[in-house]
């Protein structure tokens, strides 16, 4: 799990191109974003299935929905920051409410754009998208998973939002590992009974690293890959709470409304346990690369291990006081 692999966006476009070789119903819509999405290859190979709408995200989504209603399977692709805010009404009405066969692909999600600032960060996209009925929401962690989820979306009907990061990421799932993914399931990547971490996207690698670090100290951390944020694997989350008594969530998103909120909403109603929600605070971030921002806010492997130790102390105190 150590070697650096291609970015998720490159994995997405490669898988998309492969799917388009087999299915000529698949259309790609971009808004002057073919470079950032890395779909120039699609534009070149399949010009008649590629639609460039210019810098107009609202229109990209509406046109995508219209194409879908005329029988196409449509991938509308562009920066996550814009597709989860500028055109939310179009995603809500033309895609989710209309149940259009449109997949919104938000690239360079989270703090991928780093020092470009708050306009380019998407730290509220999960919060926005997961409240739209009928829209599936997926966050892959690496190139292999992105490839698998893109292939799955290309073969399935209905609305979805897929968020991928911009830069190269270390692999969690080795290339060629053969793991398959099913909507609404959370694979357990590391066993443990002292606590559980629900993580998704590119934070997963660091959470897994923390679990391995803590294993050497005799602390058992269960890692859930919650790539399918909606639908969430409720039973696996509840089971983890029941068997560990402490759940942390880790995500490249605001601490409000994201995966942590989805997990908390589940647990508070099904099996309340102490919980820590780790994510970006409710503030505009300082300038910095995504790596610097991860470090500043405590998301390196070592820092996450520290958060787990803190949380375990909280759990012990709660146990002693009860």
């Amino acid at each position, binding site marked *: 799990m150590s070697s650096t692999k291609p970015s998720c966006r490159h994995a997405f476009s490669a898988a998309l191109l492969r799917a388009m070789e087999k299915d000529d119903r698949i259309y790609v819509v971009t808004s002057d974003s073919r470079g950032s999405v890395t779909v120039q290859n699609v534009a070149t190979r399949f010009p008649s299935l590629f639609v460039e709408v210019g810098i107009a995200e609202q229109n990209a989504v509406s046109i995508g929905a*219209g194409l879908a*209603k005329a029988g196409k399977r449509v991938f509308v692709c562009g920066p996550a920051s814009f597709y989860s805010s500028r055109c939310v009404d179009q995603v809500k009405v033309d895609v989710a409410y209309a149940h259009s066969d449109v997949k919104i692909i938000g690239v360079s999600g989270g703090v991928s754009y780093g020092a470009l600032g708050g306009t380019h960060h998407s730290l509220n996209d999960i919060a926005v998208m997961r409240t739209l009925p009928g829209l599936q929401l997926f966050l892959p962690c690496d190139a292999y998973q992105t490839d698998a989820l893109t292939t799955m979306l290309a073969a399935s009907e209905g609305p979805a939002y897929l968020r991928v990061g911009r830069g190269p990421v270390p692999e969690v799932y080795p290339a060629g590992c053969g793991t398959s993914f099913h909507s609404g399931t959370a694979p357990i990547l590391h066993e443990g009974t002292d606590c559980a971490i629900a993580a998704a996207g590119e934070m997963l690698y660091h959470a897994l690293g923390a679990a391995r670090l803590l294993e050497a100290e005799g602390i058992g951390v269960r890692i859930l890959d919650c790539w399918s944020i909606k639908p969430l694997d409720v039973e696996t989350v509840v089971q983890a709470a029941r068997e560990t008594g402490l759940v942390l969530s880790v995500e490249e998103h605001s601490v409000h409304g994201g995966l942590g909120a989805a997990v908390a909403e589940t647990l508070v109603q099904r099996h309340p346990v102490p919980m820590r929600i780790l994510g970006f605070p409710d503030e505009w971030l300082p300038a910095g690369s995504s790596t610097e921002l991860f470090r500043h806010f405590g998301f390196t492997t070592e820092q996450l291990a520290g958060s787990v130790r803190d949380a375990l102390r909280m759990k012990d105190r709660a146990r002693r006081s009860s």
Partner: protein
Amino acid sequence: MLFQSQPPTETAREIRRRLVQMIYEAKGGHVGGSLSSVEILVSLFFHAMRYDPHEPDNPGRDRFILSKGHSVEGYYCVLAKAGFFPEKELASYGRFGSFLYGHPTCKVPGVDVPSGSLGHGLGVACGMALAGKRDGASFRVFVLIGDGELAEGSIWEAVMAAAHFGLDHLVAVVDCNSLQISGRTHEIMSMQNLAQRWQSFGWEVREVDGHDLDALNRVFDEVPWQVGRPQVLLAHTIKGRGVSFMENVASWHHGEMSPEQYETAMRELSGSPEAGSR
């Protein structure tokens, strides 16, 4: 196009009476814009458009999007009369659990996309027309927009795109009734030189009296007006058309009629002095 045994003006009158009845019984509705768009819908659904209500998903069908989704009552009456669903279902409008919401949804047979949030329909119509163009299909896409709705910026994104893609199977109809909920459209956000605006974006423009069925039929018969360009019909209408106390009164954008107002409206829409008391 469906065969109609009655003259189209009688169909329009029937639609008006039915939508007024629906809105009265539901204790409110978007009556003004529904009344202004009746002839446009009658011309499209009973003259211009090619479709089979028993095959609402036929890929070769002409499409229609009511972008001004609030004018839904007249649309529902037209869909029912065209045979997409039984006319008796109209009685459920406004009642709990009805599939006939206050704005169109995909639950209604014949409705492809929901609307109600303004400024969406033209973009969706562009997508449909673009799919048809690239597939070499012959279906046309019609979309009805309100003149107040033109203030939505997303409309102009779609206006640009339709011309860029040369969508000559796309017909936008603007229901130019000159009023919106807060008052006169040109006072709320000026829309002068509307024809030139569309022309300058690369559209073929026609203007018509939006209550003249023969004129509407003729102009739709001539589609495409120019190969390679999208087309827009500026249909000049009267909001609240057919009911004297509603005509050109902004507050009837949405309203609830008293029993006396309902009786007056139905009498005026019948042409017969004793009508109106049901």
